[in-house]
């Protein structure tokens, strides 16, 4: 009798544990869904309230799964939060955006790759310009049938081209990449410099003048992708037509290009003579901090940085008045359309909902707000009185630039971008030649061959 009782207890215990696991998983999903739902209404409702709402409306409300990098400290976080709330209010009872926050675009892209591999991409994807179309084309919805003439007319031709393959539209463009560099007018004046350089020779003369005046010329970095440094590297490469063509090449395999090697040599010189000691190993934040605290005279970055110049928690009051904008020497600017909003939903209802969401996010109202709040440039040709003057200066620079290139992060293989970051310290310290630097990137690119 005791044995039988023991056996029953053991069996019951085992079943309970297994059942517990299953239930845990189920309730875990439920909890996740509830939490995400609560997040999507941007704190309007308490979690319990959102749970009740989800329960009542689950039969009719179509949820749009959208993991986003537009969160945390990202410059677009505030814009997206406001737009998400506005969409959920406008489409209350019909559609609801379910947000999953993934800070950092690289982590976001990595997650999308994993989801793609398991055929579980979310309904809507936006990588912030990172090209996933060539990688995930088979899982992305061709949006051509959903875009009528009126909507299409709001998009730029180049925006449509960047988001199309074989005549099919796989993304709705929303942003353009305009990047030059910022300089500190006061520090330039102290060094006797009147205007930004027009040639690279003049640029290095200005660096020397700044150095002689006791001013560190450049904010540079190597961590992550070495963003600020790589912007200069790309601009130096695109100092003639051949270089411009190379910098607009999608996923180049060979970096043994004279313009690129020459640019790497210039970067090496900048590291050795004209930047701060913390640039080697330093990240974008450190580089930005140096410029905003007037420890350096120049930094390469896009107009989204302008809002920082007005932020008195990051800069001295009135710092924005000291900042000037410039295109790179030889008239080069990063001036390119970017991949935009993609749909990877699988059912017609979800696709329809996802398209509606994207239409909302790329509407004139949303795009104008995007320009005003973030300082990022829209795909639509919009202007606003509320835009910071420095942002307008960047737009004006781009309008007269000679060489227009695309952002290397969007074009180069991801492992090449990573390789740039780990090889920069060697280049900076003279442990490798510019030719060896090009060889290292070529070797990394070759790993992507089929």
């Amino acid at each position, binding site marked *: 009798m*005791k*044995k039988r009782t*023991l*056996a029953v207890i*053991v*069996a019951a*215990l*085992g079943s309970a*544990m*297994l059942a517990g*696991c299953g239930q845990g998983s189920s309730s875990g999903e439920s909890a996740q869904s509830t939490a995400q739902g609560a997040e999507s209404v941007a704190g309007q409702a308490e979690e319990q309230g959102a749970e009740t709402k989800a329960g009542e409306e689950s039969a009719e409300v179509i949820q749009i799964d959208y993991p986003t990098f537009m969160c945390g400290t990202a410059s677009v976080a505030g814009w997206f939060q406001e737009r998400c709330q506005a969409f959920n209010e406008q489409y209350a009872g019909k559609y609801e955006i379910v947000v999953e926050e993934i800070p950092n675009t690289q982590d976001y892209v*990595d997650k999308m*790759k*994993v989801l*793609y*591999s398991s055929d579980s991409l979310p309904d809507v994807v936006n990588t912030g310009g990172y090209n996933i179309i*060539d*990688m*995930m*084309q*088979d899982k992305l919805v061709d949006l051509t049938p959903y875009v009528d003439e009126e909507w299409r007319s709001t998009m730029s031709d180049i925006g449509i081209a960047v988001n199309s393959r074989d005549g099919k539209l796989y993304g709705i463009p929303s942003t353009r990449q305009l990047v030059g560099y910022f300089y500190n007018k006061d520090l330039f004046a102290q060094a006797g410099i009147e205007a930004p350089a027009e040639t690279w020779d003049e640029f290095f003369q200005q660096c020397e003048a700044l150095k002689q005046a006791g001013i560190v010329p450049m904010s540079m970095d*190597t*961590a992550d992708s070495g963003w600020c440094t790589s912007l200069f590297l790309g601009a130096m490469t695109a100092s003639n037509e051949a270089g411009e063509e190379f910098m607009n090449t999608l996923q180049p395999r060979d970096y043994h290009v004279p313009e690129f090697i020459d640019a790497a040599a210039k970067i090496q010189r900048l590291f050795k003579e004209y930047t701060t*000691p*913390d640039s*080697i*190993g330093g990240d974008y934040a450190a580089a930005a901090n140096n410029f905003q605290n007037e420890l350096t005279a120049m930094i390469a970055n896009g107009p989204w940085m302008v809002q920082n110049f007005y932020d008195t928690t990051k800069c001295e009051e009135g710092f924005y008045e000291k900042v000037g904008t410039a295109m790179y020497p030889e008239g080069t600017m990063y001036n390119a359309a970017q991949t935009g909003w993609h749909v990877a939903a699988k059912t017609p209802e979800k696709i329809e909902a996802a398209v509606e969401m994207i239409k909302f996010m790329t509407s004139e109202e949303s795009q104008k707000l995007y320009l005003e709040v973030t300082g990022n440039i829209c795909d639509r040709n919009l202007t606003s009185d509320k835009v910071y003057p420095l942002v307008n200066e960047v737009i004006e620079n781009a309008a007269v630039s000679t060489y227009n290139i695309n952002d290397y992060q969007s074009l180069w293989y*991801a*492992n090449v971008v*990573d390789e740039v*970051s*780990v*090889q920069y*310290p*060697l280049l900076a*310290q003279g*442990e*490798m030649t510019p030719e060896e630097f090009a060889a*290292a990137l070529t070797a990394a690119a070759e*790993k*992507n061959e*089929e």
Partner: protein
Amino acid sequence: MRVKKHILFVFLLPCAFLFGLIYLIPIGVVTATSFTSWKIGSDIHFCGLENYLSAVRDPNVRVALLHTLFWVVLQATVHVALGVTLALILSRRCRGWRAIRTISMLPNIIPASALAIIFLRVFDANGLINSLLSVITGKPVQIQWYFQVKTAMIPVTLSWLIYSGLITILVLAAILGVSTELSDSAKMDGARGLQIDFLVILPIIRTTIGTAVIIASTSMLKEFELIFLTTNGGPGNKTLNMPLYLYKTSLIENNYGYGNAMGVMLILLGVGIVFGVNRLFRMDESVY
């Protein structure tokens, strides 16, 4: 009450089920796919030993494997030795031993991300180490410890080598569990201090030290965050190890088949270490 042994297996079922689900099946999948060509956006197909042959030819694999083995050996020797030494000292129950025991554990409970940031700052060009060196030498020192070829291994290794609090706690618990009669007997036979430690205590806690060696050395087969968040394997590949290269291969190059081949190599390395340490410390033999 005697319970039939087969009843006891019922208790194992939930654990065995979860182990199978979470470990065995994924290990099987990883092993099987390591013999395939599997990249993002392309079909998966069998390629035999191609991934393993590529690994043999890949200079980054050789470097990463060398670094990984170097850190495994250091952890198994220096790290454990530091932990055991501190445990022996604390076992004397000198004043404040409990506080020291707790403090020694602190680096183990700080999140790796926070620890990485702390270390980056300490070894920064304008960091604590350079400031100290500047004071000592009387000249400004601005060494980029993490990013110079000759120095990069030092801060990376230091970020885990000297923090042996976990080993200390394990070994100390074992020492305190040893009957005092044994050390008293040794004292009566004329043994003193270190003689008791090395000839009586340490042999008795042999299996605990073996366990510590396994924990310490295998931790290096999964060390990722502290390298990824500081040097990312650089400069060049000077601090690259196998877990980081596996990550880069899988998630940046999107070459899952090759990444899984590295995963299998790491698993085999881990099994080899556990087997070797078990033999070395005679883990399955009684200590008495």
